[in-house]
C-alpha cells in the first residue's frame, strides 16, 4: 500500500512487528516513490521527498531522490525550496557530481529578494560546499557579509569560513570584511565572525599580524561580557554568552602566542575572567578551562601562569568527572613546562588514582610519573606501589616499568632500590618487562653487600607466592647463584635470622619447577639454578644426588630446550672439578660498559624516553621482541629515530643481515644475562659469528644479544681468539643494486672501525650518478672518502671508504641514504643499518 503522507508512513513503519516486515514495507514504499517521480507530478513531489528522507534516515538507499530535490529547490514555493535544500543536505555531500548542479540554484537564491530564501541558500552552502562551489560563489558570500540583515551576515560569515577551509587562497578576499564584522554588536554575528577570524589566523600567519590590532577590541568585548549583569537573551546559568566568551578566549590565545605586546594587553582581562568566573557549574568551568589554555599558551606573566595551574588544581577536586578529566589532560600537557607549579597539587593528583573513572585514573597515573624527582621519589613511589596493588591489569606493565625506572634514576640508596623492585615483583610479577627484570639482576650482582638480604627476601617471597612469573624468575636465579650466601646468612624475616637448610632451598626451587604456574622459561631457570646449587660445597651430597635425579628425569623431557639443558648439566656432573669451575658464581656484568651504555642507548631504561614507547599508557604490554631476521633491530631503530629526530619511516626497514647472523636463534635478553645457564644454542651457528669478531676481548660474547651479554661465560671454555677476518654485510639490496659493508678493526685502536662499502649492480643496467651518504648517532663520528666512481657498471664493483669512531662497547649504527639513476629512473632511498656484530668497537 502507498501511504498518503509522511505521518502515515511513519505510523505504518512503526506498526511493523518485525524488522523483515519493516524492510518489505520500505522497499514497497521506495518503489512507489520512484514510480511517482517518473510521473513528474510537482504536487506529489513534496510529499514523496518527505517520505524518502525518512526512509533515508532509517538507513535505506534514497539517492534516486537527489535530482528530485533539485527540482524542488527550483520551485517558487518556499516550502518546496526548504524541503529541497534539506534533501540536498541529507542526500548529497561535497564529493558528489550532482553538486555542481546545485551551484546554480544556490547562486540564484543567494541573490533572491526574499531574505528567508537567501538564508536557505547560505545554510545549504555552509554545510556542503565543495572546493569548486566555494570558488564559484565566493563573491556572493562576500557581498552578503555586508548585508544589513544580521541573520544573513551571521550565516554568510560561516559560509566564508567554509570557503577558506576549502580554498585557503581565498582568505585575503575576506579579511577586510571580517575586520568590520568583529565590531558587530550582534552576538550571533560576532560569534560567527570570531570563528571565521580564528580559522584565518590558524591557516595563515600573515593574518595573525593583520588581526593583532583587534586585540584591544576583543579584550573590550570580553570585558563587556564579564562585567554586564544579567542579560536574559544570552544567559546560561548566570553567565553571559559563555560560548562567545570561549571563542574570544580562543582567538586571543592565537593572537597572543609568541607576541609579548599582545599578551601584555590581555593579561588583565584574563586575570579578571579567571578570578570572577563562577566555577561551580559546567558553564563557568568551560570558560575557566579556556582561560587556562590561553594563559598557558601566550607569553603571560608568571603569576598568571601559576594562577592558571591552580585553577586546574582546583578542578581536580571538583565533583564532576568531566572537569577532573579536562584538568588532568591539561596538566599532562603542561607538566614538562611548569613542573613546580604542578608539584603543588601532587596529593590531589594521587587521589585521582583512586577515581571511579578509568580514564581519569589513567591520566592521573601518567601525570604522577612525570612528577617523580629525586626529592619526592620515596613518597611518590610508595603511593604508586600502593596503587599497584589495586590497579587495573592494563596499567600494571606500565607501572612496574615506570616505578623501576624511577627507582633506578632517583634511588636514595641501593637498599631502597632493591626493596622497591622487589615489591613490584611481588605485587605485579606477571606484568614485568624483561628489561626491568634483567636490570634488577644486574643490580643484585653488583651489590654484594646486599646479596644475602636480597636472596633471603626473595626466598621468603617465593615461599609465599609462586604465581608471579617475574618474581619466580628473579628468585630462582638469585637463589641458585647465591645459595651458599643464603645458607650462611639464613633467612632474615623479622629480627632473628632463621636457618634454612640446603634441603629447604632445593625443595623451594623444585616446587617452582612443578608448580602449576611453571612455564618453559621458569623451568629452564630452575634447572640451571639447581645445577649451580649442587656444585657448591655448601650443598650436601644427599641434595646433590637429588638434583642429579631431577636432571635425569628431564633428560627425556619432550621439550627440546629443557631436555638439552638437562642432558648437558647431567653430563657436567661427571666432570668433577671442571664442573665447579664452570658453575662458579657469575662475575657481575660490567656495569660501566653495559648498564650505563644500555641505559642511555639501547633500552627504554632512561626514563626520559618512557613516554615515547608507550609505557606511560601502559599499553605496550610486552616489549616488542624483534623478530626480524633474528637480530635486535627494533631497539636500534628507536635509537636512530630518536637521534635523528624522526619516527622510523617505512623505508627504514632493516636491511637483510649477513647470513651468519640470521641463522642465530632468537634469545631473550633475560636468557642472555643468564648466559651461564644457557645451554649453547647451536655451536655451529655460533662459530661463524664469533669468527667475524676481530677483537679477542669480545670473542666470548654472544654476538646478537644485548650488550649485557658481554660477560665472559665460564660455561664455554675460552676459545682461541680468532685472527681478524673480514666479513661483509649487506646493507642495501633493492632494484638490483647491492651495497655491502665490510668492517675492519684493529686491536690497537679500539673504537675505530674502518668500513669499506662496495657497490654493485646485479642487473644489466648501469647505475649512474650514485650518491651515497651515511649518518651515525651523535655519540659517534664519521669520516668518508669519495666514492671510487659515481657510475656503477654491471660486473664492476665500486668502493667507498668510511671510518666510524665510536665509544668502545657501543654498536655501530648507520643511517644510509642512497640516490642513483637506474635505467633512466631516479631512485632515492634510505635504510637503517645495524647489522654489524656486537663488540666491533671493542670492550672497555
Amino acid at each position, binding site marked *: 500500500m502507498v501511504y498518503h503522507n509522511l505521518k502515515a508512513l511513519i505510523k505504518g513503519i512503526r506498526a511493523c512487528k518485525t524488522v523483515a516486515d519493516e524492510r518489505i514495507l520500505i522497499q514497497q514504499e521506495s518503489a512507489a516513490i520512484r514510480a511517482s517521480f517518473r510521473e513528474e507530478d510537482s504536487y506529489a513531489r513534496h510529499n514523496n521527498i518527505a517520505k524518502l528522507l525518512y526512509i533515508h534516515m532509517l538507513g535505506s538507499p534514497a539517492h534516486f531522490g537527489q535530482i528530485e530535490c533539485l527540482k524542488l529547490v527550483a520551485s517558487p514555493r518556499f516550502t518546496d525550496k526548504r524541503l529541497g535544500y*534539506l534533501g540536498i543536505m541529507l542526500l548529497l555531500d561535497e564529493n558528489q557530481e550532482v553538486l555542481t548542479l546545485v551551484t546554480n540554484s544556490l547562486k540564484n537564491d543567494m541573490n533572491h529578494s526574499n531574505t528567508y530564501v537567501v538564508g536557505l541558500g547560505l545554510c545549504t552552502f555552509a554545510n556542503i560546499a565543495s572546493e569548486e562551489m566555494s570558488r564559484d560563489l565566493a563573491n556572493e558570500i562576500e557581498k552578503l557579509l555586508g548585508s544589513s540583515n544580521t541573520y544573513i551576515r551571521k*550565516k554568510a560569515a560561516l559560509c566564508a*569560513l567554509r570557503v577558506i577551509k576549502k580554498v585557503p587562497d581565498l582568505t585575503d578576499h575576506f579579511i577586510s570584511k571580517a575586520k568590520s564584522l568583529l565590531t558587530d554588536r550582534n552576538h550571533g554575528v560576532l*560569534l560567527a565572525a570570531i570563528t571565521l577570524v580564528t580559522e584565518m589566523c590558524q591557516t595563515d600567519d600573515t593574518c595573525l599580524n593583520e588581526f593583532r590590532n583587534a586585540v584591544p577590541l576583543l579584550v573590550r568585548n570580553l570585558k563587556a561580557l564579564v562585567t554586564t549583569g544579567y542579560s536574559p*537573551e544570552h544567559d*546560561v546559568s548566570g553567565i553571559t554568552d559563555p*560560548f562567545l566568551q570561549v571563542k574570544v578566549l580562543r582567538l586571543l590565545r592565537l593572537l597572543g602566542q609568541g607576541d609579548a605586546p599582545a599578551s601584555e594587553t590581555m593579561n588583565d582581562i584574563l586575570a579578571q575572567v579567571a578570578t570572577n568566573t563562577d566555577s561551580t557549574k559546567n558553564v563557568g568551568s*568551560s570558560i575557566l578551562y579556556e582561560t587556562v*589554555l590561553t594563559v598557558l599558551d601566550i607569553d603571560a606573566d608568571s603569576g598568571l601562569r601559576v594562577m592558571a595551574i591552580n585553577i586546574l588544581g582546583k578542578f581536580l577536586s571538583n565533583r564532576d568527572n568531566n572537569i577532573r578529566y579536562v584538568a588532568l589532560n591539561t596538566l599532562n600537557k603542561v607538566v614538562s613546562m611548569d613542573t613546580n607549579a604542578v608539584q603543588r597539587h601532587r596529593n590531589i593528583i594521587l587521589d585521582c588514582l583512586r577515581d571511579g573513572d578509568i580514564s581519569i585514573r589513567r591520566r592521573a597515573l601518567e601525570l604522577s610519573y612525570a612528577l617523580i624527582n629525586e626529592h619526592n621519589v620515596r613518597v611518590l613511589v610508595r603511593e604508586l606501589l600502593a596503587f599497584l596493588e589495586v590497579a587495573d591489569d592494563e596499567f600494571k606493565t606500565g607501572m612496574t616499568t615506570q616505578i623501576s625506572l624511577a627507582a633506578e634514576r632517583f634511588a636514595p640508596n641501593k637498599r631502597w632500590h632493591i626493596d622497591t623492585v622487589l615489591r613490584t615483583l611481588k605485587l605485579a610479577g606477571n606484568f614485568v618487562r624483561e628489561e626491568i627484570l634483567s636490570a634488577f639482576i644486574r643490580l643484585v650482582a653488583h651489590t654484594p653487600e646486599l646479596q644475602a638480604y636480597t636472596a633471603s627476601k626473595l626466598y621468603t617471597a617465593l615461599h609465599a607466592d609462586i604465581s608471579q612469573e617475574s618474581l619466580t624468575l628473579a628468585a630462582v636465579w638469585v637463589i641458585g647463584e647465591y645459595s651458599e650466601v643464603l645458607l650462611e646468612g639464613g633467612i632474615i624475616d623479622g629480627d632473628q635470622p632463621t636457618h634454612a637448610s640446603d634441603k629447604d632451598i632445593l625443595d623451594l626451587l623444585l616446587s617452582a619447577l612443578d608448580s602449576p604456574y611453571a612455564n618453559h622459561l621458569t623451568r629452564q631457570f630452575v634447572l640451571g639454578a639447581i645445577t649451580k646449587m649442587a656444585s657448591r660445597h655448601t650443598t650436601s651430597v644427599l641434595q646433590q644426588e637429588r638434583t642429579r635425579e631431577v636432571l635425569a628425569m628431564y633428560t627425556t623431557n619432550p621439550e627440546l630446550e629443557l631436555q638439552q639443558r638437562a642432558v648437558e648439566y647431567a653430563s657436567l656432573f661427571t666432570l668433577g672439578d671442571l664442573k665447579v669451575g664452570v658453575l662458579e658464581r657469575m662475575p657481575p656484568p660490567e656495569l660501566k660498559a653495559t648498564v650505563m651504555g644500555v641505559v642511555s642507548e639501547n633500552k627504554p631504561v632512561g626514563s626520559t624516553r618512557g613516554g615515547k614507547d608507550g609505557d606511560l599508557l601502559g599499553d605496550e604490554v610486552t616489549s616488542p621482541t624483534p623478530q626480524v631476521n633474528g637480530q635486535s633491530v627494533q631497539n636500534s631503530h628507536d635509537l636512530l629515530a630518536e637521534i635523528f629526530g624522526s619516527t622510523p619511516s617505512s623505508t627504514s626497514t632493516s636491511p637483510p643481515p649477513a647470513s651468519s647472523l640470521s641463522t642465530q636463534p632468537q634469545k631473550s635478553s633475560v636468557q642472555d644475562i643468564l648466559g651461564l645457564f644457557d645451554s649453547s644454542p647451536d655451536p655451529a651457528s655460533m662459530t661463524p659469528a664469533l669468527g667475524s669478531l676481530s677483537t679477542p676481548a669480545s670473542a666470548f660474547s654472544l654476538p646478537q644479544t644485548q650488550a649485557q651479554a658481554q660477560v665472559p661465560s665460564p660455561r664455554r671454555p675460552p676459545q682461541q681468539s680468532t685472527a681478524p677476518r673480514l666479513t661483509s654485510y649487506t646493507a642495501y639490496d633493492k632494484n638490483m643494486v647491492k651495497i655491502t659493508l665490510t668492517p675492519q678493526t684493529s686491536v690497537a685502536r679500539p673504537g675505530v672501525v674502518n668500513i669499506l662499502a662496495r657497490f654493485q649492480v646485479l642487473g644489466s643496467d648501469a647505475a649512474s650518478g650514485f650518491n651515497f651518504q651515511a649518518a651515525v648517532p651523535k655519540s659517534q663520528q664519521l669520516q668518508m672518502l669519495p666514492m671510487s666512481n659515481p657510475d656503477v657498471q654491471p660486473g664492476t664493483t665500486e668502493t667507498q671508504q668510511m671510518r666510524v669512531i665510536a665509544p668502545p662497547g657501543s654498536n655501530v649504527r648507520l643511517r644510509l641514504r642512497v640516490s642513483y639513476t637506474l635505467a633512466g629512473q631516479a631512485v632515492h632511498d634510505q635504510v637503517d643499518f645495524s647489522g654489524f656484530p656486537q663488540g666491533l668497537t671493542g670492550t672497555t
Partner: protein
Amino acid sequence: MIRFILVQNRQGKTRLSKWYVPYDDEEKVRLRGEVHRLVAPRDQKHQSNFVEFKNHKIVYRRYAGLFFCVCVDANDNELAYLEAIHLFVEILGKSFMLSAYLTYLLADTDAFFDNVCELDLVFNFYKVYAILDEIFLAGEIEETSKDVVLSRLEELEKLE
C-alpha cells in the same frame, strides 16, 4: 570544529545524523555503529562525558533514552560543547511545546526525556534538522540565544 552530530536511542537507532565532513555512506553506517557501541555502555555516574575517538573526541550527553553525541577536534573545549548540546536540547524541548515541563525537568541531568520526546523527534525529524541548522552551521556554533532561534523558527513555520 564539529565533524558530525548523532542522536541515537539506547538501541542504537539513529534519530538524527548531521555530517559536516564528507563521509561515504558505508563510513556513515560504520561510524553510527562505532559511536553507539562506544557511548551506550558507559557509566553515566562514574565516567566523564568524553571519549577519545580515533584522532577526535566524542562529547556526549544522555537525556533519558537518547544519546546526543558530537564528534569534535582533539583540541576543542569539551566542556563548551557539552554546554552546546544542552542548548540544543533545551531549544528542542521548547519548540516542541513541552517547554515548561521539559525545561523544568531538564534542569536535572537525568531528566525525563522519554518516549514522548523521542517520538516527537521521529515525527518531526525535518523540523529537528531545521532547528539544528539554526544552532550549528558549517560545524560551528552559529547562534547561542534561544530566543533568536525560536523566533526565527516561528517565522519559518509561518511561511510554510
